[in-house]
């Protein structure tokens, strides 16, 4: 066993929070899209990957990290609009397997498309100069960029919560995920709401990719790796449950991070073991309502 100092352990727990934050940003979008339109978006991870690549190019173009941070999710979110409008919309009313299959094909095409445009070799992105240095927290030092990622995640989650709880559109979204037929019967245009939610979810995936790039590198397979982790998060948290996605995402981040510390080889396996245990003990997930879209 390595020399366990409390400070090293705390640092690792912070790293877990960063990883968890990225997972939460991804899983919430996935969960929101599923809750509203019962579409499991396999390509969600690929939009995360695309976010990281677009950020790389925008950084070269604009030379400003802050502009990139805003623009890249918008670019990716706009692509999300197009995908919903041109592809996924055709499949509403068919088996929920069909959008999953379609987006699987899409993610396959996107992985190769990205290699075609940006090359097969992975890219590296530097964090902005203002955030590159480590900060002294009094009892330990920690990279500022990672604290920044935690802060951005928190701000985005707060904004999303305010949007869903305090605005009229948010009200329609929540109503639509409970009973789409009734919302339509009340004369509301759900197609536009679906388009919007899909765009928001994809934009959040893009943002997660932008944030993850400087920490984890930018490569074509990063999307499929994270989508599988996200699936674990939504299975553990309960699909369609935002609180579940947040808690399960943070939990998974901590579990991976702390296992990496104690037994690096097991880090990739332990999330699946946790998932299996949750399935045995609480089949509907920690926060899932049994029977939701099953």
């Amino acid at each position, binding site marked *: 066993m390595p020399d366990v100092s409390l400070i090293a352990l705390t640092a690792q727990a912070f790293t877990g929070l960063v990883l968890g934050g990225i997972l939460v940003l991804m899983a919430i979008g996935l969960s929101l899209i599923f809750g509203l339109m019962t579409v499991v978006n396999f390509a969600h991870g690929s939009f995360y990957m695309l976010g990281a690549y677009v950020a790389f190019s925008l950084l070269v173009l604009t030379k400003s990290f802050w502009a990139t941070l805003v623009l890249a999710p918008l670019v990716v979110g706009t692509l999300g609009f197009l995908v919903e409008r041109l*592809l996924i919309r055709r*499949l509403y009313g068919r088996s929920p397997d069909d959008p*999953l*299959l379609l987006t699987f094909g899409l993610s*396959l*095409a996107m992985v190769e498309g990205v290699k075609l445009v940006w090359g097969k070799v992975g890219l590296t992105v530097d964090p902005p100069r203002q955030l590159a240095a480590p900060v002294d927290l009094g009892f330990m030092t920690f990279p500022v960029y990672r604290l920044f990622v935690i802060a951005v995640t928190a701000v985005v989650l707060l904004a999303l919560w305010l949007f869903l709880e305090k605005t009229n559109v948010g009200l329609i979204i929540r109503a639509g995920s409970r009973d789409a037929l009734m919302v339509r019967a009340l004369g509301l245009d759900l197609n536009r709401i679906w388009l919007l939610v899909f765009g928001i979810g994809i934009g959040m995936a893009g943002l997660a990719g932008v944030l993850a790039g400087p920490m984890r590198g930018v490569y074509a397979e990063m999307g499929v790796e994270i989508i599988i982790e996200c*699936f674990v998060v939504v299975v553990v948290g309960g699909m369609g449950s935002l609180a579940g996605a947040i808690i399960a995402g943070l939990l998974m981040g901590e579990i991976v991070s702390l296992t990496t510390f104690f037994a690096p080889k097991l880090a990739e396996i332990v999330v699946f073991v946790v*998932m299996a245990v949750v399935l045995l003990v609480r089949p509907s997930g920690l926060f899932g309502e049994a029977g939701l879209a099953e």
Partner: protein
Amino acid sequence: MIQRAFGGLTAWVSAHPIVSFVVFFAIFPFLVPYESLATQVLIYGLFALGFNLLYGYTGLLSFGHAAYYGLGAYATGIALAKLKVTSLWLALGLGLAAAVVGGALVGFLCLRRRGIYFAMLTLAFAQMLYFIAFHAADLTGGDDGLRGIPLHPLGLPGTSLSLRHPLAFYFFAYVLVVLAVAGLKRILDSPFGAVLQAIRENSDRAVACGYDINRLKLLSFVFSALFAGLAGALDALRLTVVPVEALYWSTSGQVVIMTLLGGAGTFFGPFVGAATYLVLADRLSIFIEFWPLVIGVIFMAFVLFLPRGIWGTMTTRGVQR
């Protein structure tokens, strides 16, 4: 005229599936550019056949069938390369056993969640096996793959047969795949097979009819894993190596694509799909480095516009005319 003859042919093939299969695949290796492509079509067709039993006939979409293909491949490979088993039959049997046990365990866990979760769970557990194989390098060879699988002569009553010639190996695989195809036909024609299709069409009604659908789904899952495991075991012998990618999600994705290209829920769809995919990949990779991009786009077009797949579209048209 040509269309009518064609429709008649597909109708006859659909009515006599086993005879058609036996005849067609007896001449198949002489129709393709090289024999090993024919063997690949047989083995991947068998893999897709297993997937099709679960998705096409029972309505359960698994995104993790690499797990059972990989378990079959690794167990057979480890038996021959590490445990020094000399009987191919025993090694194949161990491969099948590993796939069945793995299928029963994972199937039990995945069936605790229904609907769309099922696909995610199967994918997650398959990826877990991939990571285990990746890290257990002593047993599996890890990232380098399991190498040095000896292809012993096949023991038959009173004699033994070398499988080194590609055609000899093809016909060895052919006999086993024909048995598997006949087995699938037997399953589909049985009351059990009828209930599986009832579950696909309307699982609530199947429950109302008094069937224990979770047990039947699990049984379908295990049979499906058995076919996938046999395919994996045969592929380990064909390649004499098991790459760790055998367990990777991309392998699961391949079998999904093949089955849907050919036609999910149709008897020959998996083989038509496997042949289409492998020939496409073989030809495309000559011209385009990023050929999976083309496959991905074709696959999306099939999901959108041809959900019955090639064989499904051909046979429905044949019946209608």
